[in-house]
């Protein structure tokens, strides 16, 4: 029997057995859809962690001088308590370190708190309040969408001006340009001079609900005790220069704190590498769970497909018997079922690809999960989903085709 004949026969059968064919195709479809969807979540998380998260929190070739590490994982209580007893970083420390650095760097310091921002009776609650120096925008890569950032003069003078995050600006000023208007932060008026470009969100938390005001402005009272900063940020041009800047910073801080050689640092310097380390630890767990879930889904999907196909073939053992009694060879039967299963798997897999991509786009749009479709997952989905469909269709048929025709005919 010619192969074209097998395809024609397969299409005839598919048309004749619409319901069963639809179910078989649905089996493959679900398998492929789920695989692409699940994979896109794991893939999206992974890309997110490596590309965006660490960079967003710390930045490249940048380190933060803090009392204690900001991003931590599995810290013991005693260590935590020791960190809490350390002295805070002061304006004076930050200034001294900045002056003590001999490598080219950009520095800024900032303090962070939470509070509400008010405009014209509208109140935005739970807003991140930042008191920062003027280079904060450059270092944190906050681009100004509208208006301007504050100047060194405004920073030094502690002028009551403020730059808004995108979401906050949208919320308080849905209709008008906020630049030039005055918002109240904890009762005190600040003039809006700029709006930062949209940052998006990090694992579902908006990065656009913040205000930045000069560190020396009254906002300091809302975020830290007088003269205290959360962190000094130092951004170097290259990795070796950053290392050198870290050494210099350590030296300045140790001498300011009068630490003896055998005493440990009572401050912390955090790099994006450190943050990535944290993520590596966390992602190890995610990676153990993620593929496990995908694996379970695949097994379940595979069993479903296999069962549907097994049923379809079992019911057709008699047909196989008839065909064999009329002179069909084993390979004729195999070809017929292979063509049939392949056609159904192709339809199911194509629909599965489209739906899988749509599903992950929907996930990305509607949920905080950073789903991202990888071409590999499509290949994997088609190979696994389609493969299971084809094997499930052909294997039982090949067993039935091995029977003597009369044995196949007797089975009902």
């Amino acid at each position, binding site marked *: *029997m*010619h192969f074209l*004949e097998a395809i024609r*026969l397969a299409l*005839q*059968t598919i048309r*004749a*057995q619409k319901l069963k064919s639809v179910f078989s195709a649905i089996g493959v479809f679900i398998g492929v859809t789920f695989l692409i969807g699940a994979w896109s979540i794991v893939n999206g998380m992974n890309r997110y962690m490596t590309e965006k998260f660490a960079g967003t929190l710390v930045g490249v070739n940048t380190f933060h001088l803090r009392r204690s590490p900001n991003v931590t994982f599995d810290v013991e209580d005693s260590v935590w308590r020791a960190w809490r007893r350390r002295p805070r970083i002061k304006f004076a420390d930050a200034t001294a370190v900045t002056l003590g650095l001999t490598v080219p760097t950009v520095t800024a310091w900032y303090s962070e708190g939470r509070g509400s921002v008010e405009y014209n009776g509208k109140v935005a609650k739970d807003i991140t309040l930042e008191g920062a120096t003027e280079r904060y925008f450059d270092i944190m890569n906050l681009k100004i969408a509208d208006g301007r950032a504050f100047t060194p003069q405004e920073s030094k003078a502690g002028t009551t001006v403020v730059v808004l995050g995108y979401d906050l600006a949208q919320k308080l000023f849905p209709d008008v340009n906020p630049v030039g208007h005055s918002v109240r932060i904890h009762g005190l008026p600040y003039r809006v001079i700029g709006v930062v470009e949209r940052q998006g969100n990090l694992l579902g938390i908006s990065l656009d609900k913040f205000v930045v005001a000069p560190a020396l402005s009254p906002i300091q009272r809302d975020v830290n005790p007088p003269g205290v900063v959360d962190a000094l940020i130092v951004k170097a041009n290259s990795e070796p220069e950053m290392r050198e800047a870290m050494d210099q910073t350590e030296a300045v801080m140790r001498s300011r704190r009068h630490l003896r050689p055998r005493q440990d640092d009572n401050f912390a310097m955090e790099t994006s590498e450190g943050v990535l380390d944290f993520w590596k630890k966390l992602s190890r767990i995610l990676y153990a769970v993620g593929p496990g879930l995908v694996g379970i889904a695949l097994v379940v999907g595979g069993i479903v497909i296999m069962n549907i196909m097994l049923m379809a073939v079992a019911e057709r053992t*008699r*047909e196989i*018997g*008839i*065909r*064999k*009694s*009329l*002179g*069909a*060879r*084993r*390979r*004729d039967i195999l070809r017929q079922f292979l063509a049939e299963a392949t056609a159904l798997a192709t339809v199911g897999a194509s629909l599965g690809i489209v739906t899988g991509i749509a599903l992950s786009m929907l996930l990305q749009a509607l949920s905080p999960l950073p789903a991202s479709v990888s071409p590999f997952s499509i290949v994997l989905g088609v190979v696994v989903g389609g493969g299971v469909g084809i094997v499930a269709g052909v294997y039982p048929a090949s067993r039935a085709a091995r029977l*003597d*025709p*009369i*044995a196949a*005919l007797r089975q009902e």
Partner: protein
Amino acid sequence: MTALQSFRTGDTPLPDIVILTHKLARDYDMGGEVVRALRGVSLQIRKNEYVAVMGPSGSGKSTLMNLVGCLDTPTAGEYWLNGQKVSDLSDDALARIRNKEIGFVFQTFNLLPRATALHNVELPLIYAGLPARERREHAARALTSVGLGDRMDHRPNELSGGQRQRVAIARALVNAPSILLADEPTGNLDSATSAELMQVFGDLHRQGQTIVMVTHEHDIAAHAARVVTLRDGVIATDQLQAA
């Protein structure tokens, strides 16, 4: 006919012997218990014979038919078809014999339920490797010859029992096989339709077709020229009768 029973293992059948079985046996394993359905049947059938195989149920007549039709494989013994020893052929070679040499008519018709009469008759031609157009012509001619020229696009469930059996006969004959085998062909038909079918078989026999038919009805067996009776898996009687 008894003169032919001198066949021994190692011999080759005479040229005009279409079917020769030598001590043919078939055991079935029914869950640990071995049922000996055939216990050594030696039978020779000449070209253009019309043979009825009779016997009570369980006598092994259907088993013999399935072995002769290459639908089943014997446990022991030899089977020669047209001078070719079939009992040790490969699976593919057997498929070819079923396709070219044997036309089988079943009691339950065994038509594909979702295919049209035409497609059902086409099946043996598909496996014979005929191109589509030729196939359709052949199948249409075969259906017309059994009087179903106007029912080609009907599915089996749109046909009467007698019509279905005629589709099955058209399918059995479409490849011009050397033997026509029928297992209780009238088993599911009323007596009027049975009589019609016997008419068809009679015509085919007159045209030179070799026919072997299993039946347990004496009036059906009466149409055949030779009656072989089986009992407990062996041949009890083998007689010629006046047509």
